[in-house]
């Protein structure tokens, strides 16, 4: 049995996975598709026929991608930049929650018998899990859509983008931060100076990347 809502959700998903098509564009194209289906319905076609024709009139996703890319080649990089920011933010959240959890475990001696390796494993895994939860929640809030299922599916289609652009950048950042941290540790400065600089290290990147993400998101919105 043909379900129009499922068909539309699938179709939206294929559009959302295109790099050049923003969420706003998807919403606009969805309205167009629905208007077209309504008109064809009124002409006596059943919903499956109406959907197939409407979809064909709008054009195949690959063609749309090419057309939208012509409109603005920088949209691609805006989008990638956003995912890079998300990757770095994920890294920051992981580190922060990780050290927090580690601190809690040590302070309250939750696992007194556990060897350091077990403790470290728990610390890393819980941090990673937590950060993913935070990111997914953030994405849900930022990109609001109509139905729950729709939202979850749409978010999932974006994971390849995170892996492609977010994680490499996060890894490189982690390496750079780790190296500069080592240099700081071995420097001859006093304790206060060291504490102040680490405070700066912890505080500034999240604010910076959140701002960067926000700016990129706004720019993308305004272009659409």
């Amino acid at each position, binding site marked *: 049995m043909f379900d129009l809502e499922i068909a539309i959700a699938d179709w939206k998903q294929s559009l959302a996975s295109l790099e050049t098509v923003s969420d706003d564009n998807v919403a*606009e194209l969805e309205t167009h598709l629905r208007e077209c289906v309504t008109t064809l319905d009124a002409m006596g076609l059943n919903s499956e026929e109406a959907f197939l024709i409407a979809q064909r*009139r709008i054009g195949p996703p690959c063609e749309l991608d090419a057309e939208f890319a012509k409109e603005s080649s920088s949209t691609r990089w805006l989008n990638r930049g956003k995912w890079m920011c998300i990757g770095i933010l994920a890294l920051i959240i992981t580190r922060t929650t990780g050290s927090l959890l580690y601190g809690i475990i040590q302070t309250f001696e939750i696992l007194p018998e556990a060897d350091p390796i077990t403790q470290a494993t728990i610390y890393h895994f819980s941090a990673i899990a937590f950060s993913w939860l935070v990111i997914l929640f953030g994405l849900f809030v930022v990109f609001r859509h109509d139905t729950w299922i729709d939202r979850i599916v749409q978010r999932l289609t974006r994971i390849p983008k995170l892996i492609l652009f977010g994680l490499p950048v996060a890894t490189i950042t982690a390496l750079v931060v780790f190296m500069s941290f080592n240099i700081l540790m071995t420097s001859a400065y006093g304790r206060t100076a060291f504490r102040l600089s680490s405070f700066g290290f912890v505080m500034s990147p999240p604010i910076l990347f959140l701002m960067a993400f926000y700016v990129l998101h706004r720019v993308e919105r305004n272009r*659409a």
Partner: protein
Amino acid sequence: MSDISKDLIAASSRPLVLSILAEGESYGYAIIQEVRERSGGQLEWTDGMLYPVLHRLQRNGLITSKWKTADTGRKRKYYRLNTKGKKALATERQQWFAVHETLAQFWGPDPCLT
């Protein structure tokens, strides 16, 4: 008559969209319908192609857009021509008439067969 070439459709999309919006604010689906109707079906656009055109016009500052809820409860993005857009349309008009007049000198006026 054979289909109008893709290049010609692409080139005429800008003045067409501007002309339609000059008659009042409108949204994607209605614009496509209008094009189809006015051209008597001779201009067959792939519907999706319209949106990059609209977005480019907006980026160039010729039109503005706003999401509105229609009476049917459906949310539509309406586009509206602004002052800069009206000027751009006047320029387009001059240019297209210049092309048309030149061609008409070679071909003569369109014979009316009816």
